[in-house]
């Protein structure tokens, strides 16, 4: 991980890191990178991709529509709401 990649990741994730946070993260990625290198040494030829860690599949439900919450209940905790809408800072493209 170089500083350029971290800058790009900040942009992609819409984050602004302080100098201190940047240093901390660089150190973290250093270690993480080394761990990944160890994983890279494992021979995975002819090994099928693991789809999921747990042996669980098909947690699915039938197509039934239910109304469990009112709008007012949901917006009780909203930082800002107006006319039944959640209200957020103006979006600039």
């Amino acid at each position, binding site marked *: 991980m170089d500083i350029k990649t971290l800058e790009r990741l900040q*942009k*992609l*994730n*819409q984050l602004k890191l302080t100098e201190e946070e940047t240093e901390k993260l660089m150190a973290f990625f250093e270690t993480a990178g080394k761990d990944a290198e160890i994983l890279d040494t494992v021979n995975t030829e002819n090994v099928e991709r693991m*789809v*999921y*860690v*747990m042996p*669980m*599949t*098909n*947690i*699915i*439900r*039938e*197509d*039934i*529509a*239910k*109304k*469990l*919450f009112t*709008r007012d209940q*949901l*917006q009780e905790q909203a930082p*800002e709401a*107006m*006319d*039944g*809408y*959640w*209200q*957020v*800072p*103006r*979006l600039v*493209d």
Partner: protein
Amino acid sequence: MKYETVIGLEVHVELATKSKIFCSCSAEFGGEQNDHVCPACAGMPGMLPIVNKKVVDLGMTAGMMLNCDINRVTTFDKKSYYYPDLPNAYQTTQWFAPICVNGRVDIETSNGPKSIRIKQIHMEEDAGKLVHDDWTDTTLVDFNRTSVPLIEIVSQPDISSAEEAIAYLERLRDLLRFAKVSDCRWEQGSMRCDVNLSVRPVGSDKLGVRSEMKNMNSLSAISRAIKYEIARHTKAVENGETLIQDTRRWDDNEGKSYAMRSKETAGDYRYFPDPNIMPVVIDDEWFDGIKATLPELPEVKRAKYIDELGLSEYDADQLVSSRALCDVFEDAVAVCGSAKEAANWIITDCMQVLNKKKMTADMLDINGTSLGQLIKLVSEDKVSRGNAKRILAAMFENHIADVEAYAKEFGFIVSNDTSAIEAIVKEAIASDPKSVADFKAGKEKALMALFGKCMKQLKGNANPQVLREILIAEINKA
């Protein structure tokens, strides 16, 4: 130098489910803002998604209709996204193992038949709606459409003209509506299309610089936009200008496309597996069950209606324009035995009722078996045509399982009791000596006046031929 156009289409289709893809909120179109919302689709912390089985059913159905391979183990992934119409800051979609791959759609244009390959179909959630409020200078968010289930159908870049694009989209729409995957209504946004287009010299194996137009929502606009972009790209390539890869907005009123501010982040969505959604494994039983529900293709039905049932081409075309009409038709024919009559009742009478209700053919929701019973009663002279129309209107309101019993209950059965008819005829003759005299003097019209009066008295429940005979006999006696 000659140039060729390379077009790939990404088509989003909203699935015909009752509930959303990962929660039980209603997926119905419309409703007041944020009326179809729960903590899960509002992105509140700690909420877990649970996959709607019907979404997988319809995803598979779409794939089978489009000749795809179905991935028997299919998984969901997160796609980074930073607009508030998806509150999780990611869209849940499929990247590593989409439900369908490697399909094909056959089209027909003025250049003959052609196959457009399908790269993949994946299931994903729709985004909500953002409204800008000028007064407070803020953005207002409506999550009603957030998490409504979609499939995205990604074609290979096999399309080379506006005509082919339209033929492909029309065929796609026909197939998906026929299989009841979606109502595919452009005007309601349940079908929309992204157009990727580039131009290159004929024979070149390198693709030209690509432009993308997002969220196109009408066939005519797509056709115009493609023609405009082909001209723009060709001119640039001819003049040796360097095009830049961009996302463009099509202004259909002006007939021009505009570059949108390109986002640096575009194209890097950093997909990663969603750990909260277990893989969906489609076993043979599930797969075969869906396969068994696939409808015959519209053109197969059309040929059958003409060749085996003896319908005219016009009638067959009308019926196969909608799966709902076909279903009612086939059920009705099975009961009444007359394809021609059943087709007439659907194309003329049912459509009349639908038009009055401002509904489309796809919304025809009467029981075909009941319609067949009704047609049979009319052909057996048990119910008059006029009263049959009244019964049909009632069928649009309520399911009528036993039409004959219903007709009896509401007095719609044609009377074969000639003594009752004779009594009414005698009464009419006695009360209108002028018409009787006129008819005897040779005025045919006078008979119609008497006939009408009697039929009204009988509430339409008389065989017209029988009534006419009795009427003439009684006049001659008078």
